[in-house]
């Protein structure tokens, strides 16, 4: 299906007060019993287990990869997480450590986290990650150019990276914490989707605030409008700041009631998080055994 590129200056406006009210209403949903169990397992299966630190080593990445496939072997019938997310230099290690599993390898690229570099460097960064076996690329947009109003620049850059991705799926990080308004979040979402993003993602995790429910709702509504218009599904990944099982369930309520069941799989929705998995395991242990365990019973990788 053909898609006409719209004028991004005409992106729909967003009323922040109403967005916050809608979020508050999602959060009054009471998720109990089977619904809770089902939601928790789904959330675990949607996690991009992430380590993005200067001090990352092969050892750290290997340990995290084991955790990705074996979140908690003491509990029966747990899913794996969706992917691990690492820097390009650790893609090879991760790919090797995850051999034989369904867990994907996602790599940040394009001069993550600031994105302040030339297109050549960004393309090389992307190609390096893809050549090393990355299944998914998490790129950052040029926020400076965006805030200057150079939407074509931002658009072209995303389109160029998408081309360099080949078969790898492209997640476009808007770094909403630097965009300041929900109107900007909406506009950046539209640019990313029309330029070829497979996923849109809130944050790098390096800037506060990272993912919030209002920002995610605005992006989900942008995805909905894009789907209405083109029939193309785009994935969503809130990243950073989601660390509790309860919070993850609230996000799932929001996805379920905004986009529906087609998006309720890790093909179309991810959580970028490092500590969320353990809180979900803690809750699942409680559902299975009736008591809360000390955190010392749950492995930290």
């Amino acid at each position, binding site marked *: 299906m053909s898609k006409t590129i719209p004028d991004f200056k005409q992106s*729909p406006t967003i009323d922040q007060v109403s*967005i916050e*009210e809608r979020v508050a209403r999602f959060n009054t949903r009471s998720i109990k019993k089977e619904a809770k169990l089902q939601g928790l397992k789904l959330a675990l299966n949607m996690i991009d287990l992430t380590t993005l630190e200067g001090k990352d080593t092969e050892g750290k990445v290997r340990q995290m990869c084991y955790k990705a496939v074996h979140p908690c072997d003491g509990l029966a019938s747990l899913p794996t997480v969706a992917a691990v997310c690492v820097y390009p230099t650790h893609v090879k290690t991760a790919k090797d450590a995850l051999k034989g599993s369904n867990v994907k390898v996602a790599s940040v690229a394009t001069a993550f986290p600031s994105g302040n570099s030339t297109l050549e460097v960004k393309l090389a960064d992307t190609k390096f990650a893809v050549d090393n076996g990355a299944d998914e690329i998490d790129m950052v947009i040029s926020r400076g150019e965006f805030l200057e109003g150079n939407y074509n620049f931002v658009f072209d850059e995303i389109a160029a990276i998408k081309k360099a991705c080949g078969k790898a799926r492209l997640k476009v990080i808007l770094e909403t914490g630097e965009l300041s308004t929900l109107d900007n979040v909406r506009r950046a979402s539209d640019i990313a989707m029309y330029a070829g993003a497979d996923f849109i993602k809130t944050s790098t995790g390096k800037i506060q605030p990272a993912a919030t429910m209002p920002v995610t709702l605005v992006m989900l509504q942008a995805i909905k409008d894009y789907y209405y218009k083109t029939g193309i599904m785009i994935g969503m990944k809130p990243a950073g700041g989601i660390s509790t099982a309860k919070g993850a369930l609230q996000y799932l309520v929001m996805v379920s009631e905004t986009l529906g069941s087609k998006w309720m799989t890790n093909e179309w929705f991810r959580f970028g998080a490092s500590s969320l998995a353990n809180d979900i395991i803690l809750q699942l242990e409680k559902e299975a055994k009736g008591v809360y365990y000390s955190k010392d019973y749950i492995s930290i990788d």
Partner: protein
Amino acid sequence: MSKTEHTLDLMGNWTYAPAPEDSKHIKLNKKYDLFIGGKFVKPGKGKYFDTFSPSTEEKLAEVAEAEEKDVDLAVKAARNAYEKVWKKMPAKERAKYIFRIARMIQERSRELAVIESMDGGKPIRESRDIDVPLAANHFFYYAGWADKLEYAFPGRNPTSLGVAGQIIPWNFPLLMAAWKIAPALATGNTVVLKPAETTPLTALKLAEIIQESGLPDGVVNIITGFGKTGAAIVNHPDVNKVAFTGSTDVGKLIQKSIAGTDKKITLELGGKAANIVFEDAPIDQAVEGIVNGIFFNQGHVCCAGSRLFVQEGIANELIRKLKDRMETLIVGNPLDKNTDVGAINSKEQLDKINHYIKLGVNEGADLFQSSCAIPKKGYFCKPTLFLHASQSHRIVQEEIFGPVLAVQTFRTIEEVIEKANNIPYGLSAGVWTDKGSKIFNMTGKLRAGVVWANTYNKFDPTSPFGGYKESGFGREGGLHGLMPYLKF
């Protein structure tokens, strides 16, 4: 719209398990008597009627039916309390009682919310988050005014009227009791209040709270009954002030019956509000406002946004989004914390709504209802839209008082103002646009007591509320809400 529809499967594979609010802690008496002179007394003729839960059709309790003699006793108790105690009491002392009632409502908020949902059918989410907290806030707000009336109306020497007869509807039973009682007490009047016959329980619980609060006997009297009881209050010669919230038909009868007397009156009656969405509105948020405007409290709201006007350039997109949003509304057990739309208040009301739905279909408007399942027992109605409605349809002209929205499109600002005002009612309206100047242009021209901009159905004790034309007169809430209970 393009031919290929890419549909969303909303609420498909992840259904929320039932999450009912606990109601075991609720203690209801088998029988409720009349609250007169600080005591619960049996009705003179010993007649009682049943009150039911509209969601289960089960009987909850029996409630006394006040006859003319009982009304007379209540008015006498109120007069006695007015002359001997309340009129003479320093205003700051009056305020303390009102504060105490507010605090006690907060303390018993959970119990009140559950009973409100059981007896009236509204979802616990609303009674817990809106009705009960707002009721407490009204008492808090007017407690603050009690000793500052001289400053509210400087140089005008405001004084109380005497006995206020108050009759309230079934859509916000506790909240309406608060709207009526709080300003009356703050201005130094005493009260005889009659709750609606289908929803008397929270008003009777409020009577218990008032008794426990130590408010002097007879300052507030709460008596239950039907229309006849209400008429006896209105017609009682020793009532100085009548305040009524309810249907326009009854409002007209009341006005006729007090003609020629010196009784003061406020009427808050029906409505058929226009909710107007312009092309430049934030559409997803407007959809949210439309939903809150018409499906809040099953549409049993006099200021409900029951006529939607959409500018033609965005009509298809907005309707599509509205339909999708309606698919996510959960209709069912009012006590379930996830319920969005509860039970219709009574069988009579459900019959009336269904009558209008049939009428709309016969008139040729396009019916859309969300595909949700509704419980077999109890009185329920699916969220309903009528597309392609015209100004001449009766579903556009008459108040349905249910979850039924009539949708019309418009082209220009002049057209929509003309259509919005072309109705006997004038209680409220909504305007959705990104442009501030357009909002102010509209608020000046819409003949409605309340105009919400980029939001809908927002209430606050500090804000006056009331209508034009057949929606009544007089204001409740805010500084303005003091005036109907004062003479100068």
